[in-house]
């Protein structure tokens, strides 16, 4: 009456998965490219579990595959092995449940601020919201990022920070299960970046979205995140360390500057980046 060993293992695996299931999980992700007969392994054995409402930063040196991880979660890239589970369902194609805020905002230049957001709202809520509701929802999301004063402006008329706000509004308007941000503030000047970080913290406190953000800014990572995922350098990059940031929210930028815990976390990340994972010399 002994059960087959294989069957048992399988059951244990399923059991584990059901009990320990996270909101979003990355399972053994491997990403390899083949060019001219050579296989280049960009990511190897990337595992991550993210709870609902968490704000996660992924940090690492340029070229370590941070963006690749994000694009895999977004479904814009297909893994070579392993997969992404969102609420226990595999996702391997892009969709509005994983809205992306792109680094260069990616607003459509021929549409006004309002129409850029409305395009997304119309598509995602085509059946579930009436025309009036879609209009209100568009306005609501633009108000959330403080861009409701510029509805009829075109992207070319906006500053970098404003464009990024609209990009965030568009992503939020999709009511995504996970909000993916690819170095969202990387191209902005320091003051604008601080403003947008504060806005993001406010929105996150308000809506409790699940956010995954790519960054290479240590302060940004520590200030915003619940956990910081630090990636090793490629090739075959993987997750080197995960740092839990247990600073109470709401966090105030100015208070943090003198906060011992904050500075400890900051040093921790720096140590990882500059001692354990030196930037590649050629970079």
């Amino acid at each position, binding site marked *: 009456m002994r059960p087959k060993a294989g069957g048992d293992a399988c059951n244990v695996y399923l059991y584990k998965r059901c009990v320990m299931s996270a909101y979003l999980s990355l399972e053994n992700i491997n990403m390899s490219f083949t060019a001219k007969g050579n296989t280049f392994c960009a990511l190897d054995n990337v595992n991550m579990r993210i709870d609902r409402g968490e704000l996660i930063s992924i940090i690492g040196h340029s070229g370590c595959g941070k963006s690749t991880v994000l694009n895999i979660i977004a479904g*814009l890239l297909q893994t070579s092995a392993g997969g992404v589970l969102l609420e226990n369902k595999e996702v391997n194609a*892009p969709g509005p449940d994983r809205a992306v805020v*792109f680094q*260069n905002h*990616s607003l*459509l230049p021929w*549409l006004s601020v309002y129409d850029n957001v409305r*395009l997304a709202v119309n598509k995602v809520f085509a059946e579930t919201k009436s025309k009036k509701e879609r209009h209100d929802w568009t306005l609501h999301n633009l108000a959330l990022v403080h861009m409701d004063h510029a509805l*009829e402006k075109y992207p070319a008329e906006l500053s970098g920070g404003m464009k990024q706000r609209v990009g965030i509004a568009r992503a939020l308007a999709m009511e995504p299960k996970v909000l993916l941000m690819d170095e969202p503030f990387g191209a902005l000047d320091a003051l604008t970046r601080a403003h947008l970080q504060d806005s993001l913290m406010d929105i996150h406190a308000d809506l409790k979205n699940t956010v995954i953000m790519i960054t290479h800014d240590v302060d940004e990572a520590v200030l915003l995140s619940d956990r910081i995922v630090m990636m090793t350098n490629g090739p075959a990059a993987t997750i080197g360390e995960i740092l839990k940031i247990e600073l109470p929210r709401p966090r105030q930028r100015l208070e943090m500057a003198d906060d011992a815990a904050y500075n400890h976390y900051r040093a921790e990340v720096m140590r990882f980046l500059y001692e354990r994972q030196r930037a590649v010399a050629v970079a």
Partner: protein
Amino acid sequence: MKSNVLRIAEQDKSSGAESTPVAVATQSTSHSSPPPTDAPTKWLGRDKLAGILRGVVLPFLTFAIVIGVWLLIHTHVVKAIPSPLDAWHKAVEIFSDPFYDKGPNDMGIAWQLLYSLGRVMAGFGLAVLVGVPVGFLMGMSPAFRTALQPLIQILRPVSPLAWLPIGLLLFRAVDPSAIFVIFITCIWPTLVNTAAGVQAVPKDYMNVAAVLRLGKWEIATKILLPATLPYIMTGMRLSLSIAWMVIVAAEMLTGGIGIGFYIWDEWNNLNVPSIIVCIVVIGLVGIILESGMSLIQKRFDYNLR
């Protein structure tokens, strides 16, 4: 300077209405006027006045020189070249009754121009109807592009007039042949620009489309078409200006009513002053076509809004 232009653009937009011509005017003046520095305002008005004066005086000088050389040629080199005054009198005569109609061989200049414009518009319209969709296919499908590229490479440098005999054979009539030649003239710039435009659509826009799960048709109409429109417009603008040049030559060969044959006819009658008038008129119509196209471009090209 840039912010200044931007502000003016905003004002135009906030003033509502589709007042594109106004926008054009304000923008061009803001370009040519000196940057608003902290110089006292009274000097600004003076600078502007000087700028306008310069804008009038310098071109006027050029015209004066050309007319002087023309006069010299008339008096000292080739007597048969009419004097500027002869040409002027001829112009007054021609434009005193541009719409007269004394049978198919004797019509006013306005009719000649309208017939030519009609052919240009027909050929141009057909070329846009064919060129834009085919250009789209070329931009979207590498296979399609590979298949068509060599043919286009070979045919593009050929003078459209070389196709006239083929047109005459195919259609056995003068009018469709001329339209056919204009079609050939316009198809290449339209095709090539549209294809280039589709290929130049940033990957980011496609990512946005993917995240929103837009369908194929939605991608074509909501992303590719608007993103490509500036390129299509450029192609159309190029096409139209070349077409207006080609129609004159084509009509000289085909005969009938039209500004091209009109010139040829006047040459056969040794009526040289009319030819000179025609040259100027063709140029002016060309300017009108060009500015018409740039108005349309301003309306549709998000880069110029």
